[in-house]
């Protein structure tokens, strides 16, 4: 079975600091990788995704992530965070199996707090 591990459950940063959130998955097959963000009281929104090709993917709001297959990692980065980035961040993975992609397996999430 797939599993996703997010290393940091709570992260507190000051505005303008750089961000890196770790994500590792365990699965040996072909996977799709995602980062979702959940702002307080809101639903999940897609930040970025990796299906194939360039392992460095860019998403919305200045976020990017790098897929390192040898390390089974898909870390999220942002060079300079803003107060509005305060949210819960989820790494997720699913498998593509012929007829379409399966349901997502999520990490436990990282609660990011940006201090002004």
């Amino acid at each position: 079975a797939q599993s996703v591990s997010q290393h940091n459950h709570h992260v507190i940063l000051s505005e303008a600091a750089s961000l890196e959130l770790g994500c590792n998955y365990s699965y040996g097959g072909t996977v799709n990788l995602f980062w979702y963000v959940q702002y307080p009281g809101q639903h999940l929104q897609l930040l970025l995704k990796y299906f194939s090709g360039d392992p460095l993917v860019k998403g919305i709001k200045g976020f990017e992530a790098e897929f390192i297959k040898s390390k089974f990692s898909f870390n999220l980065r942002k060079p300079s965070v803003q107060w509005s980035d305060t949210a819960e961040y989820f790494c997720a993975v699913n498998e593509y199996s012929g007829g379409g992609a399966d349901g997502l397996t999520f990490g436990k999430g990282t609660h990011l707090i940006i201090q002004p």
Partner: protein
Amino acid sequence: DARVTQTPRHKVTEMGQEVTMRCQPILGHNTVFWYRQTMMQGLELLAYFRNRAPLDDSGMPKDRFSAEMPDATLATLKIQPSEPRDSAVYFCASGSSGASSTDTQYFGPGTRLTVL
């Protein structure tokens, strides 16, 4: 701006009562997913459908939960009887899957269920 809609947004009920949650996927999407979010377990996949056929409901307690898609524009998740441990936020997501497509899941706003 196409969105997944869910009703009700909030539901408070007493233990033993039946609860029905509804989801309207984005028009044209052929895959619908149900997830549950709790503080303890995080986000878990309950079940999903493709072209209205159930593909996987292994994440769902079979004795009390049931999921259906009466038509392409409506998915339902029913709990009967409900228990306090079912208190959670239930998210519906939809996507467009196919043999050659890479799909993204778009999440609805969720139904916050409280069972007293």
